[in-house]
Protein backbone atom coordinates (compact mmCIF):
# COMPACT_ATOMS: atom_id res chain seq x y z
CA UNK A 1 0.00 0.00 0.00
CA UNK A 2 1.12 3.53 -0.78
CA UNK A 3 -0.10 6.52 1.14
CA UNK A 4 0.12 10.16 0.09
CA UNK A 5 -0.21 12.64 2.92
CA UNK A 6 -1.11 16.24 2.23
CA UNK A 7 1.03 16.62 -0.88
CA UNK A 8 1.53 20.17 -2.12
CA UNK A 9 3.46 21.22 -5.19
CA UNK A 10 3.79 24.50 -7.04
CA UNK A 11 5.76 25.47 -10.11
CA UNK A 12 6.59 29.16 -9.75
CA UNK A 13 3.40 30.77 -8.55
CA UNK A 14 1.25 28.08 -10.11
CA UNK A 15 -0.18 25.76 -7.47
CA UNK A 16 -0.60 22.40 -9.15
CA UNK A 17 -1.31 20.22 -6.12
CA UNK A 18 -2.82 21.87 -3.07
CA UNK A 19 -2.97 19.08 -0.52
CA UNK A 20 -3.49 15.58 -1.85
CA UNK A 21 -4.09 12.80 0.66
CA UNK A 22 -5.00 9.34 -0.46
CA UNK A 23 -4.27 5.65 -0.27
CA UNK A 24 -3.41 3.29 -3.08
CA UNK A 25 -4.22 -0.31 -2.33
CA UNK A 26 -2.31 -3.55 -2.84
CA UNK A 27 -3.64 -5.97 -5.43
CA UNK A 28 -5.83 -3.25 -6.89
CA UNK A 29 -5.63 -1.01 -9.93
CA UNK A 30 -5.74 2.50 -8.51
CA UNK A 31 -6.72 5.09 -11.10
CA UNK A 32 -6.00 8.80 -11.09
CA UNK A 33 -8.31 10.69 -13.38
CA UNK A 34 -8.81 14.37 -14.11
CA UNK A 35 -8.73 16.82 -16.96
CA UNK A 36 -5.59 17.55 -18.89
CA UNK A 37 -3.34 19.74 -16.76
CA UNK A 38 -4.99 18.61 -13.52
CA UNK A 39 -1.64 17.44 -12.20
CA UNK A 40 -1.90 13.68 -12.71
CA UNK A 41 1.60 13.28 -14.07
CA UNK A 42 3.03 15.56 -11.39
CA UNK A 43 1.35 13.49 -8.67
CA UNK A 44 2.63 10.24 -10.18
CA UNK A 45 6.16 11.64 -10.40
CA UNK A 46 5.97 12.70 -6.77
CA UNK A 47 4.81 9.22 -5.76
CA UNK A 48 7.84 7.61 -7.44
CA UNK A 49 10.22 10.26 -6.13
CA UNK A 50 11.06 12.03 -9.38
CA UNK A 51 9.71 15.30 -8.02
CA UNK A 52 10.03 16.39 -4.46
CA UNK A 53 6.78 17.90 -3.11
CA UNK A 54 6.90 21.30 -1.41
CA UNK A 55 5.03 19.79 1.50
CA UNK A 56 3.67 16.40 2.47
CA UNK A 57 4.96 12.85 2.50
CA UNK A 58 4.73 9.61 0.57
CA UNK A 59 4.66 6.33 2.48
CA UNK A 60 5.45 2.92 1.04
CA UNK A 61 3.98 0.51 3.60
CA UNK A 62 5.60 1.88 6.75
CA UNK A 63 8.56 3.64 5.13
CA UNK A 64 8.47 7.35 4.41
CA UNK A 65 10.10 7.83 0.98
CA UNK A 66 11.92 11.03 1.94
CA UNK A 67 13.41 9.68 5.19
CA UNK A 68 15.22 6.82 3.50
CA UNK A 69 18.98 6.61 3.20
CA UNK A 70 20.54 6.44 -0.24
CA UNK A 71 20.87 2.68 0.04
CA UNK A 72 17.28 2.21 1.19
CA UNK A 73 16.01 4.45 -1.60
CA UNK A 74 17.90 2.30 -4.07
CA UNK A 75 16.39 -0.87 -2.62
CA UNK A 76 12.90 0.60 -2.77
CA UNK A 77 13.44 1.74 -6.34
CA UNK A 78 14.21 -1.80 -7.39
CA UNK A 79 10.70 -2.71 -6.30
CA UNK A 80 9.15 0.01 -8.44
CA UNK A 81 8.28 -0.42 -12.11
CA UNK A 82 7.05 2.45 -14.17
CA UNK A 83 5.56 2.76 -17.62
CA UNK A 84 5.96 6.19 -19.20
CA UNK A 85 3.59 7.89 -21.57
CA UNK A 86 5.77 7.31 -24.63
CA UNK A 87 7.40 4.07 -23.52
CA UNK A 88 10.73 5.80 -22.77
CA UNK A 89 12.89 3.19 -24.50
CA UNK A 90 16.52 3.76 -25.49
CA UNK A 91 16.57 4.37 -29.24
CA UNK A 92 20.06 3.00 -29.66
CA UNK A 93 19.36 -0.27 -27.88
CA UNK A 94 17.23 -3.05 -29.24
CA UNK A 95 14.23 -4.46 -27.38
CA UNK A 96 16.24 -7.13 -25.63
CA UNK A 97 18.87 -4.68 -24.39
CA UNK A 98 16.16 -2.32 -23.22
CA UNK A 99 14.34 -4.93 -21.17
CA UNK A 100 17.58 -6.49 -19.97
CA UNK A 101 18.90 -3.19 -18.64
CA UNK A 102 17.40 -3.49 -15.12
CA UNK A 103 18.63 -7.09 -14.98
CA UNK A 104 22.13 -6.06 -16.10
CA UNK A 105 22.14 -3.29 -13.53
CA UNK A 106 20.81 -5.10 -10.49
CA UNK A 107 21.14 -8.84 -10.80
CA UNK A 108 23.98 -11.29 -11.19
CA UNK A 109 22.14 -13.60 -13.54
CA UNK A 110 24.00 -15.16 -16.45
CA UNK A 111 23.31 -13.89 -19.94
CA UNK A 112 21.31 -17.03 -20.69
CA UNK A 113 19.11 -16.55 -17.62
CA UNK A 114 18.57 -12.92 -18.49
CA UNK A 115 17.57 -13.77 -22.04
CA UNK A 116 15.12 -16.31 -20.70
CA UNK A 117 13.60 -13.74 -18.37
CA UNK A 118 13.32 -11.21 -21.24
CA UNK A 119 11.52 -13.81 -23.35
CA UNK A 120 9.17 -14.52 -20.44
CA UNK A 121 8.06 -10.93 -19.97
CA UNK A 122 7.81 -10.39 -23.72
CA UNK A 123 5.49 -13.35 -23.92
CA UNK A 124 3.40 -11.81 -21.18
CA UNK A 125 2.88 -8.67 -23.25
CA UNK A 126 2.25 -10.80 -26.35
CA UNK A 127 5.36 -9.72 -28.20
CA UNK A 128 7.40 -12.91 -28.36
CA UNK A 129 10.33 -12.77 -30.74
CA UNK A 130 10.79 -9.00 -31.09
CA UNK A 131 14.06 -9.03 -29.09
CA UNK A 132 16.32 -7.95 -31.98
CA UNK A 133 14.09 -5.09 -33.13
CA UNK A 134 14.87 -1.44 -32.39
CA UNK A 135 12.22 0.86 -30.86
CA UNK A 136 11.98 2.84 -34.11
CA UNK A 137 10.85 -0.35 -35.86
CA UNK A 138 7.92 -0.81 -33.49
CA UNK A 139 4.49 0.82 -33.44
CA UNK A 140 3.52 3.08 -30.55
CA UNK A 141 1.44 0.33 -28.96
CA UNK A 142 4.26 -2.17 -29.24
CA UNK A 143 6.69 0.30 -27.67
CA UNK A 144 4.32 0.71 -24.75
CA UNK A 145 4.07 -3.03 -24.32
CA UNK A 146 7.86 -3.28 -24.35
CA UNK A 147 7.77 -0.49 -21.73
CA UNK A 148 5.48 -2.65 -19.61
CA UNK A 149 7.75 -5.64 -20.10
CA UNK A 150 10.70 -3.60 -18.86
CA UNK A 151 8.66 -2.26 -15.93
CA UNK A 152 7.83 -5.77 -14.70
CA UNK A 153 11.08 -7.56 -15.50
CA UNK A 154 12.35 -7.28 -11.91
CA UNK A 155 9.02 -8.45 -10.46
CA UNK A 156 8.11 -5.10 -8.93
CA UNK A 157 5.81 -4.69 -5.97
CA UNK A 158 4.65 -1.30 -7.17
CA UNK A 159 3.68 -0.50 -10.73
CA UNK A 160 3.03 3.01 -12.06
CA UNK A 161 1.58 3.74 -15.47
CA UNK A 162 1.26 7.20 -16.98
CA UNK A 163 -1.57 6.99 -19.49
CA UNK A 164 -0.90 3.42 -20.58
CA UNK A 165 -3.39 3.57 -23.41
CA UNK A 166 -3.35 7.09 -24.75
CA UNK A 167 -2.83 7.07 -28.49
CA UNK A 168 -3.72 3.42 -28.86
CA UNK A 169 -6.60 1.90 -30.78
CA UNK A 170 -9.47 0.73 -28.53
CA UNK A 171 -8.65 -2.93 -28.98
CA UNK A 172 -4.99 -2.62 -28.03
CA UNK A 173 -6.02 -0.32 -25.19
CA UNK A 174 -8.20 -3.07 -23.74
CA UNK A 175 -5.41 -5.62 -24.13
CA UNK A 176 -3.06 -3.36 -22.18
CA UNK A 177 -5.65 -2.61 -19.49
CA UNK A 178 -6.31 -6.30 -19.03
CA UNK A 179 -2.62 -7.04 -18.95
CA UNK A 180 -1.99 -4.48 -16.22
CA UNK A 181 -4.95 -5.75 -14.24
CA UNK A 182 -3.84 -9.38 -14.56
CA UNK A 183 -0.33 -8.55 -13.42
CA UNK A 184 -1.70 -6.55 -10.51
CA UNK A 185 -3.97 -9.37 -9.32
CA UNK A 186 -1.61 -12.21 -10.04
CA UNK A 187 1.39 -10.79 -8.23
CA UNK A 188 -0.65 -8.84 -5.70
CA UNK A 189 1.13 -5.56 -6.42
CA UNK A 190 0.09 -1.96 -5.87
CA UNK A 191 -0.66 -0.38 -9.21
CA UNK A 192 -1.30 3.31 -9.85
CA UNK A 193 -2.51 4.41 -13.27
CA UNK A 194 -3.08 7.86 -14.77
CA UNK A 195 -5.74 7.83 -17.39
CA UNK A 196 -8.07 9.85 -19.57
CA UNK A 197 -9.78 6.79 -20.87
CA UNK A 198 -13.35 6.27 -19.65
CA UNK A 199 -13.27 2.75 -20.96
CA UNK A 200 -10.43 1.95 -18.59
CA UNK A 201 -12.21 3.61 -15.73
CA UNK A 202 -15.17 1.32 -16.14
CA UNK A 203 -13.06 -1.77 -16.87
CA UNK A 204 -10.38 -1.67 -14.22
CA UNK A 205 -11.35 1.10 -11.78
CA UNK A 206 -10.89 -0.67 -8.45
CA UNK A 207 -10.10 2.60 -6.72
CA UNK A 208 -10.60 5.87 -8.55
CA UNK A 209 -9.24 9.26 -7.60
CA UNK A 210 -10.56 12.37 -9.30
CA UNK A 211 -8.20 15.34 -9.26
CA UNK A 212 -9.60 18.82 -9.63
CA UNK A 213 -8.12 22.20 -8.79
CA UNK A 214 -5.22 20.54 -7.05
CA UNK A 215 -7.38 18.52 -4.67
CA UNK A 216 -8.96 15.08 -4.57
CA UNK A 217 -12.49 15.94 -5.66
CA UNK A 218 -13.84 12.42 -5.36
CA UNK A 219 -12.70 8.91 -4.50
CA UNK A 220 -14.47 5.60 -4.97
CA UNK A 221 -14.72 2.54 -7.24
CA UNK A 222 -16.27 2.02 -10.66
CA UNK A 223 -19.65 0.96 -9.31
CA UNK A 224 -19.82 4.06 -7.14
CA UNK A 225 -18.62 6.48 -9.79
CA UNK A 226 -21.39 5.63 -12.18
CA UNK A 227 -24.21 6.23 -9.71
CA UNK A 228 -22.59 9.09 -7.81
CA UNK A 229 -24.50 12.33 -7.41
CA UNK A 230 -21.39 14.37 -6.68
CA UNK A 231 -21.34 17.52 -8.83
CA UNK A 232 -17.79 17.09 -10.08
CA UNK A 233 -18.41 13.48 -11.00
CA UNK A 234 -21.62 14.34 -12.79
CA UNK A 235 -19.79 16.97 -14.78
CA UNK A 236 -17.26 14.30 -15.68
CA UNK A 237 -19.90 11.73 -16.56
CA UNK A 238 -22.03 14.05 -18.65
CA UNK A 239 -18.97 14.91 -20.71
CA UNK A 240 -18.94 11.34 -22.02
CA UNK A 241 -21.91 9.83 -23.90
CA UNK A 242 -20.63 6.39 -23.01
CA UNK A 243 -20.68 7.08 -19.27
CA UNK A 244 -24.04 8.82 -19.58
CA UNK A 245 -25.52 5.68 -21.07
CA UNK A 246 -23.91 3.49 -18.41
CA UNK A 247 -25.26 5.73 -15.70
CA UNK A 248 -28.76 5.56 -17.06
CA UNK A 249 -28.52 1.80 -17.17
CA UNK A 250 -27.10 1.54 -13.65
CA UNK A 251 -29.82 3.74 -12.24
CA UNK A 252 -32.45 1.76 -14.14
CA UNK A 253 -33.64 4.74 -16.17
Amino acid at each position, binding site marked *: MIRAVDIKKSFGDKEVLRGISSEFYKGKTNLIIGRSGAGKTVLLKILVGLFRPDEGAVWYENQCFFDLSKKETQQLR*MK*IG*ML*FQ*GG*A*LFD*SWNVEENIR*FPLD*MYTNLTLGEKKKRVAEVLEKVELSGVEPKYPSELSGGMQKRVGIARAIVLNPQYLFCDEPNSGLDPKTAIVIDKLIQDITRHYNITTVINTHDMNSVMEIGDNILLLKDGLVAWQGNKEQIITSNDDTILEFIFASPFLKRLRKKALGL
Partner: protein
Amino acid sequence: MIGKLIYGLFFQLGQWVLWMNHAFSRPEKLKVYWRETVRQMNDLGVGSLPVVIIISVFFGAVTTVQFYYQISGTFVPNYYIGYIVRDMTIIELAPTFTCMLLAGKVGSNIATEIGGMRQKEIIDAMEVMGVNTAAFLVLPRLVAAVFMIPLLVILAAAISILGGYFASVWGHLFTSSEFLQGLHSFFIPYNVYIMLVKAVTFAFLLTTISAYQGYFVKSGSIELGRASTNAVVLSDVAILVADYIIAILMT
Protein backbone atom coordinates in the same frame (compact mmCIF):
# COMPACT_ATOMS: atom_id res chain seq x y z
CA MET B 1 21.33 43.08 -19.00
CA ILE B 2 25.05 42.40 -18.57
CA GLY B 3 24.52 41.79 -14.87
CA LYS B 4 21.85 39.27 -15.65
CA LEU B 5 24.10 37.55 -18.17
CA ILE B 6 26.94 37.29 -15.67
CA TYR B 7 24.57 36.07 -12.97
CA GLY B 8 23.26 33.44 -15.39
CA LEU B 9 26.77 32.35 -16.28
CA PHE B 10 27.78 31.91 -12.66
CA PHE B 11 24.54 30.10 -11.86
CA GLN B 12 25.22 27.69 -14.71
CA LEU B 13 28.81 27.25 -13.63
CA GLY B 14 27.73 26.41 -10.09
CA GLN B 15 25.09 23.98 -11.27
CA TRP B 16 27.59 22.37 -13.61
CA VAL B 17 30.09 21.83 -10.78
CA LEU B 18 27.44 20.36 -8.47
CA TRP B 19 26.20 18.12 -11.21
CA MET B 20 29.70 16.90 -12.07
CA ASN B 21 30.25 16.15 -8.44
CA HIS B 22 27.11 14.01 -8.51
CA ALA B 23 28.22 12.31 -11.71
CA PHE B 24 31.59 11.32 -10.30
CA SER B 25 30.40 8.50 -8.14
CA ARG B 26 31.07 4.82 -8.19
CA PRO B 27 29.25 3.07 -11.04
CA GLU B 28 26.48 0.74 -9.92
CA LYS B 29 27.69 -1.97 -12.24
CA LEU B 30 31.04 -1.65 -13.98
CA LYS B 31 30.15 -4.05 -16.74
CA VAL B 32 27.18 -2.02 -17.94
CA TYR B 33 29.22 1.18 -17.83
CA TRP B 34 32.04 -0.46 -19.71
CA ARG B 35 29.74 -1.71 -22.45
CA GLU B 36 28.41 1.80 -22.86
CA THR B 37 31.94 3.24 -22.89
CA VAL B 38 33.00 0.95 -25.71
CA ARG B 39 29.97 1.98 -27.72
CA GLN B 40 30.76 5.64 -27.16
CA MET B 41 34.42 5.13 -28.10
CA ASN B 42 33.36 3.58 -31.33
CA ASP B 43 30.84 6.34 -32.12
CA LEU B 44 33.26 9.08 -31.23
CA GLY B 45 36.45 7.71 -32.70
CA VAL B 46 35.26 6.13 -35.91
CA GLY B 47 32.54 8.73 -36.39
CA SER B 48 34.95 11.65 -36.19
CA LEU B 49 37.78 10.14 -38.23
CA PRO B 50 36.80 11.34 -41.73
CA VAL B 51 36.14 14.95 -40.78
CA VAL B 52 39.33 15.19 -38.70
CA ILE B 53 41.41 13.78 -41.55
CA ILE B 54 39.98 16.05 -44.22
CA ILE B 55 40.23 19.21 -42.15
CA SER B 56 43.77 18.41 -40.99
CA VAL B 57 45.18 17.83 -44.48
CA PHE B 58 43.98 21.21 -45.62
CA PHE B 59 45.01 22.93 -42.45
CA GLY B 60 48.58 21.79 -42.79
CA ALA B 61 48.62 22.64 -46.48
CA VAL B 62 47.19 26.12 -46.02
CA THR B 63 49.48 26.94 -43.12
CA THR B 64 52.53 25.93 -45.14
CA VAL B 65 51.55 27.90 -48.21
CA GLN B 66 50.81 31.00 -46.14
CA PHE B 67 54.12 30.82 -44.38
CA TYR B 68 55.95 30.37 -47.61
CA TYR B 69 54.23 33.49 -48.89
CA GLN B 70 55.28 35.47 -45.83
CA ILE B 71 58.83 34.20 -45.72
CA SER B 72 59.77 34.14 -49.39
CA GLY B 73 61.96 37.06 -50.32
CA THR B 74 63.27 37.41 -46.78
CA PHE B 75 66.47 35.98 -45.40
CA VAL B 76 64.68 33.36 -43.39
CA PRO B 77 65.77 29.99 -44.80
CA ASN B 78 63.08 27.81 -46.35
CA TYR B 79 63.59 24.93 -43.95
CA TYR B 80 62.24 27.14 -41.19
CA ILE B 81 58.82 26.58 -42.69
CA GLY B 82 58.88 22.90 -41.80
CA TYR B 83 59.92 23.79 -38.30
CA ILE B 84 57.26 26.46 -37.80
CA VAL B 85 54.49 24.35 -39.30
CA ARG B 86 55.44 21.46 -37.04
CA ASP B 87 55.47 23.47 -33.85
CA MET B 88 52.34 25.46 -34.60
CA THR B 89 50.53 22.27 -35.42
CA ILE B 90 51.63 20.45 -32.30
CA ILE B 91 51.22 23.23 -29.78
CA GLU B 92 48.17 24.99 -31.07
CA LEU B 93 46.45 23.93 -34.23
CA ALA B 94 46.05 20.21 -33.73
CA PRO B 95 44.70 20.24 -30.16
CA THR B 96 42.71 23.48 -30.18
CA PHE B 97 41.37 23.39 -33.66
CA THR B 98 40.51 19.69 -33.61
CA CYS B 99 38.74 20.02 -30.29
CA MET B 100 36.75 23.05 -31.41
CA LEU B 101 35.79 21.09 -34.46
CA LEU B 102 34.78 18.15 -32.27
CA ALA B 103 32.78 20.49 -30.01
CA GLY B 104 30.72 21.25 -33.09
CA LYS B 105 30.31 17.64 -34.08
CA VAL B 106 30.51 15.53 -30.92
CA GLY B 107 29.34 18.22 -28.50
CA SER B 108 26.14 19.02 -30.33
CA ASN B 109 25.59 15.32 -30.76
CA ILE B 110 25.91 14.64 -27.04
CA ALA B 111 23.64 17.54 -26.12
CA THR B 112 20.94 16.47 -28.56
CA GLU B 113 21.13 12.82 -27.61
CA ILE B 114 20.95 13.41 -23.87
CA GLY B 115 18.41 16.21 -24.33
CA GLY B 116 16.24 13.85 -26.33
CA MET B 117 16.48 11.32 -23.52
CA ARG B 118 15.33 13.96 -21.07
CA GLN B 119 12.41 14.99 -23.24
CA LYS B 120 11.30 11.46 -23.96
CA GLU B 121 11.40 10.68 -20.21
CA ILE B 122 14.15 8.11 -20.71
CA ILE B 123 16.20 9.80 -17.98
CA ASP B 124 13.16 9.73 -15.68
CA ALA B 125 12.69 6.07 -16.47
CA MET B 126 16.28 5.33 -15.46
CA GLU B 127 15.97 7.43 -12.30
CA VAL B 128 12.91 5.42 -11.27
CA MET B 129 14.96 2.26 -11.76
CA GLY B 130 17.44 3.73 -9.28
CA VAL B 131 20.20 4.52 -11.78
CA ASN B 132 22.46 7.50 -11.10
CA THR B 133 21.68 9.01 -14.48
CA ALA B 134 24.23 11.81 -14.28
CA ALA B 135 26.95 9.21 -13.83
CA PHE B 136 25.56 6.80 -16.39
CA LEU B 137 25.23 9.45 -19.07
CA VAL B 138 28.49 11.28 -18.39
CA LEU B 139 31.14 8.80 -17.29
CA PRO B 140 31.14 6.52 -20.35
CA ARG B 141 31.17 9.51 -22.70
CA LEU B 142 33.89 11.17 -20.67
CA VAL B 143 36.14 8.12 -20.57
CA ALA B 144 35.59 7.57 -24.28
CA ALA B 145 36.43 11.20 -25.07
CA VAL B 146 39.47 11.45 -22.81
CA PHE B 147 40.83 8.34 -24.46
CA MET B 148 39.83 8.90 -28.10
CA ILE B 149 40.24 12.65 -28.50
CA PRO B 150 43.99 12.69 -27.73
CA LEU B 151 44.39 9.93 -30.31
CA LEU B 152 42.46 11.99 -32.82
CA VAL B 153 44.62 15.00 -31.98
CA ILE B 154 47.83 13.04 -32.52
CA LEU B 155 46.45 11.85 -35.82
CA ALA B 156 45.41 15.39 -36.74
CA ALA B 157 48.92 16.67 -36.01
CA ALA B 158 50.54 13.96 -38.11
CA ILE B 159 48.18 14.48 -41.02
CA SER B 160 48.51 18.25 -40.83
CA ILE B 161 52.27 18.00 -41.14
CA LEU B 162 51.84 15.55 -43.97
CA GLY B 163 49.48 18.02 -45.65
CA GLY B 164 52.12 20.71 -45.32
CA TYR B 165 54.69 18.41 -46.84
CA PHE B 166 52.56 17.61 -49.87
CA ALA B 167 51.57 21.22 -50.39
CA SER B 168 55.16 22.38 -50.43
CA VAL B 169 56.57 19.59 -52.51
CA TRP B 170 53.75 19.29 -55.04
CA GLY B 171 53.44 23.04 -55.22
CA HIS B 172 57.18 23.25 -55.97
CA LEU B 173 57.52 25.87 -53.23
CA PHE B 174 60.69 24.26 -51.99
CA THR B 175 62.21 20.82 -51.90
CA SER B 176 61.06 18.01 -49.69
CA SER B 177 64.50 17.80 -48.11
CA GLU B 178 64.19 21.39 -46.95
CA PHE B 179 60.82 20.64 -45.39
CA LEU B 180 62.13 17.46 -43.76
CA GLN B 181 65.18 19.28 -42.46
CA GLY B 182 62.79 21.77 -40.86
CA LEU B 183 60.79 18.99 -39.28
CA HIS B 184 63.95 17.64 -37.67
CA SER B 185 65.19 20.99 -36.34
CA PHE B 186 64.78 22.25 -32.80
CA PHE B 187 62.40 19.49 -31.81
CA ILE B 188 61.23 19.78 -28.19
CA PRO B 189 59.41 16.69 -26.88
CA TYR B 190 57.84 18.83 -24.15
CA ASN B 191 55.61 20.38 -26.83
CA VAL B 192 54.02 17.01 -27.50
CA TYR B 193 53.30 16.80 -23.82
CA ILE B 194 51.59 20.21 -23.96
CA MET B 195 49.53 18.97 -26.88
CA LEU B 196 48.33 15.95 -24.92
CA VAL B 197 47.53 17.98 -21.82
CA LYS B 198 45.46 20.28 -23.99
CA ALA B 199 43.70 17.41 -25.72
CA VAL B 200 42.69 15.77 -22.44
CA THR B 201 41.55 19.05 -20.90
CA PHE B 202 39.52 20.05 -23.93
CA ALA B 203 37.98 16.58 -24.16
CA PHE B 204 36.88 16.85 -20.56
CA LEU B 205 35.39 20.29 -21.08
CA LEU B 206 33.53 19.57 -24.27
CA THR B 207 31.93 16.33 -23.09
CA THR B 208 30.84 17.52 -19.68
CA ILE B 209 29.57 20.89 -20.88
CA SER B 210 27.61 19.33 -23.72
CA ALA B 211 26.20 16.56 -21.55
CA TYR B 212 25.19 19.15 -18.97
CA GLN B 213 23.37 21.22 -21.59
CA GLY B 214 21.44 18.17 -22.73
CA TYR B 215 20.69 16.89 -19.24
CA PHE B 216 18.90 20.04 -18.10
CA VAL B 217 17.02 20.74 -21.31
CA LYS B 218 13.39 21.87 -21.01
CA SER B 219 10.59 20.48 -23.11
CA GLY B 220 10.18 21.30 -26.78
CA SER B 221 12.29 21.07 -29.90
CA ILE B 222 13.25 24.76 -29.74
CA GLU B 223 14.84 24.14 -26.36
CA LEU B 224 16.61 21.09 -27.73
CA GLY B 225 18.07 23.17 -30.54
CA ARG B 226 19.11 25.83 -28.05
CA ALA B 227 20.82 23.23 -25.86
CA SER B 228 22.75 21.96 -28.85
CA THR B 229 23.86 25.46 -29.85
CA ASN B 230 24.78 26.34 -26.28
CA ALA B 231 26.80 23.14 -26.02
CA VAL B 232 28.92 24.12 -29.01
CA VAL B 233 29.34 27.79 -28.14
CA LEU B 234 30.10 27.24 -24.45
CA SER B 235 32.47 24.35 -25.21
CA ASP B 236 34.35 26.52 -27.69
CA VAL B 237 34.61 29.40 -25.24
CA ALA B 238 35.74 27.05 -22.46
CA ILE B 239 38.32 25.49 -24.76
CA LEU B 240 39.78 28.88 -25.68
CA VAL B 241 39.89 30.03 -22.07
CA ALA B 242 41.54 26.77 -21.03
CA ASP B 243 43.95 27.08 -23.96
CA TYR B 244 45.01 30.48 -22.67
CA ILE B 245 45.43 29.23 -19.11
CA ILE B 246 47.46 26.22 -20.21
CA ALA B 247 49.64 28.46 -22.39
CA ILE B 248 50.42 30.64 -19.38
CA LEU B 249 51.01 27.76 -17.01
CA MET B 250 53.06 25.53 -19.27
CA THR B 251 55.22 27.82 -21.40
